């Protein structure tokens, strides 16, 4: 980098200066021609999309997919997860455009565009949902670590220290690559599929034709559909990816790469989700009819059918899932608080200078890390409930996203196209219908049997 540029960069505030250094590299890369240069540019620009989608396969998600495969097998939920690919992509892609065009996070846009009431409403929802979700991440981490003989107290403290250190001491670029490296372990579930005993790929293929629901449509089925939806698209994901796009410094020129990043992330997310459903459908489904299968039972079943190594790899995946999601969720809490209250809001800021920004994320980690150590806490119930709560609040978050993406004043030529609106409104409509159906089954438990 030329010394002239260095002098110019030194005149900028520290967080913007570090972002400018990254953007300068992107700018210089863009001036080069050739496939290799283009690939380097793409590699430099991807990150938020893959990260959000892999973090979406969090410990709660792994447990939800595992319970789904255990209770319902492959009949309905394999094709259902394929449908989730465009759903996740359509929703998250909007945050890329919104972030790249406005250079502001989701919390800030809601707060400033629609007023303090809706800003505070969204922020409170997000922070509560994030803390609850973080607890499920710590449940996953401690359960997974117990398989390796590590007591919950040690694993919880270690997880808090690791996640807080990653957030506090790394600048954005390093933070993103460390996070992506941890996220790569999410793929550990995929090779396990090939060791599932008696897995008939013909049956998997036939499920796309039949969409068979064992036991028919009942309240448990709706609960599990909602839980799967809740783990595929969650409010924190909207806030996280938009803030991440802004902190990374993506601009309108980078939207196409951001879209590719999101698509690749969606593909990884669905592959891993299907892998988990196939593993548990092949090892646990049919063993018991109880809907209250806990993850320990599932791990034992995997161990007895596929061997202890498979069970350890599954546990490793669970730990990774909890870790990467906790990194992303605590960052989303910090970003959202910073955006709402106008604090400095970048992972590029040194900890002492940006303590206000880092504090909410660290506090949420401490709450979750402590909550998981409370004896006899109803952790299994909490996990599926978190997914359902997230789904209930999702239509509100989606509505703000759609309002902003249809706001010509701020989006200009990057406003939603009609097909994007039709797709997004269909997703919101489906969410609302499923939420009402679930609500009805709660109020009238015998409605669907």
């Amino acid at each position, binding site marked *: 980098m030329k010394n002239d540029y260095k002098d110019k960069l030194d005149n900028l505030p520290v967080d913007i200066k570090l972002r400018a250094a990254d953007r300068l590299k992107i700018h210089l890369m863009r001036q080069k021609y050739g496939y290799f240069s283009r690939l380097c540019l793409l590699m430099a620009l991807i990150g938020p999309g893959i990260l959000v989608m892999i973090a979406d396969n969090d410990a709660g998600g792994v447990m939800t997919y595992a319970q789904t495969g255990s209770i319902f097998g492959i009949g309905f939920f394999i094709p259902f997860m394929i449908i989730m690919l465009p759903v996740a992509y359509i929703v998250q892609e909007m945050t890329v455009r919104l972030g790249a065009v406005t*250079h502001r996070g989701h919390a800030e846009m809601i707060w400033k565009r629609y007023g303090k009431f809706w800003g505070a409403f969204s922020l409170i929802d997000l922070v509560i949902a994030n803390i609850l979700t973080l607890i499920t991440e710590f449940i996953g981490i401690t359960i997974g670590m117990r398989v390796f003989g590590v007591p919950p107290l040690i694993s919880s403290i270690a997880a808090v220290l690791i996640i807080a250190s990653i957030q506090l001491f790394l600048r954005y670029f390093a933070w993103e690559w460390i996070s992506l490296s941890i996220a790569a372990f999410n793929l550990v579930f995929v090779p396990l599929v090939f060791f599932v005993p008696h897995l008939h790929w013909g049956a998997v293929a036939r499920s796309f034709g039949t969409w068979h629901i064992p036991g028919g449509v009942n309240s448990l089925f709706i609960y599990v559909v909602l839980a799967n939806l809740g783990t595929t698209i969650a409010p924190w994901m909207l806030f996280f990816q938009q803030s991440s796009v802004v902190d990374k410094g993506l601009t309108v020129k980078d939207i196409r790469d951001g879209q590719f990043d999101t698509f690749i992330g969606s593909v990884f997310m669905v592959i891993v989700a299907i892998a988990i459903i196939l593993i548990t459908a092949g090892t646990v489904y049919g063993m018991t009819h109880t809907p209250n299968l806990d993850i320990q039972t599932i791990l034992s079943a995997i161990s007895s059918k596929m061997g202890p190594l498979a069970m350890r790899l599954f546990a490793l995946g669970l730990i990774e899932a909890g870790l990467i999601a906790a990194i992303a969720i605590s960052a989303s809490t910090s970003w959202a608080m910073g955006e709402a209250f106008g604090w400095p809001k970048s992972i590029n800021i040194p900890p002492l200078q940006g303590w206000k920004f880092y504090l909410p994320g660290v506090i949420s980690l401490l709450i979750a890390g402590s909550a998981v150590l409370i004896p006899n806490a109803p952790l299994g119930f909490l996990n599926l409930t978190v997914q359902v709560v997230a789904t209930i609040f999702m239509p509100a978050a989606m509505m703000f996203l759609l309002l902003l993406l249809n706001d010509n004043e701020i989006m200009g030529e990057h406003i939603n196209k009609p097909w994007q609106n039709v797709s997004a409104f269909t997703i919101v409509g489906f969410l609302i219908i499923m939420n009402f159906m679930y609500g009805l089954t709660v109020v009238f438990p015998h409605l669907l049997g």
Partner: protein
Amino acid sequence: MKKNNKTSKEVNLDEDWEDFIKEEGLIDYNKIPVQKAEIKGWVQIAFWFLRIYIVVMIIMVIIGFSRIH
């Protein structure tokens, strides 16, 4: 939003540093106010729908929690 017609390839950083900064959004956005949106038409309807949805959902959640024990 101001539209910059220069592509990145045309920007010479020695001469156009300010343009690079603006094009890349490397400014303190906290200092630039965002105008509050006008709530009217279908947006107003959407907000009313959201209010009703939230109230119904809260009632259902309360009923749900009260039946747990």
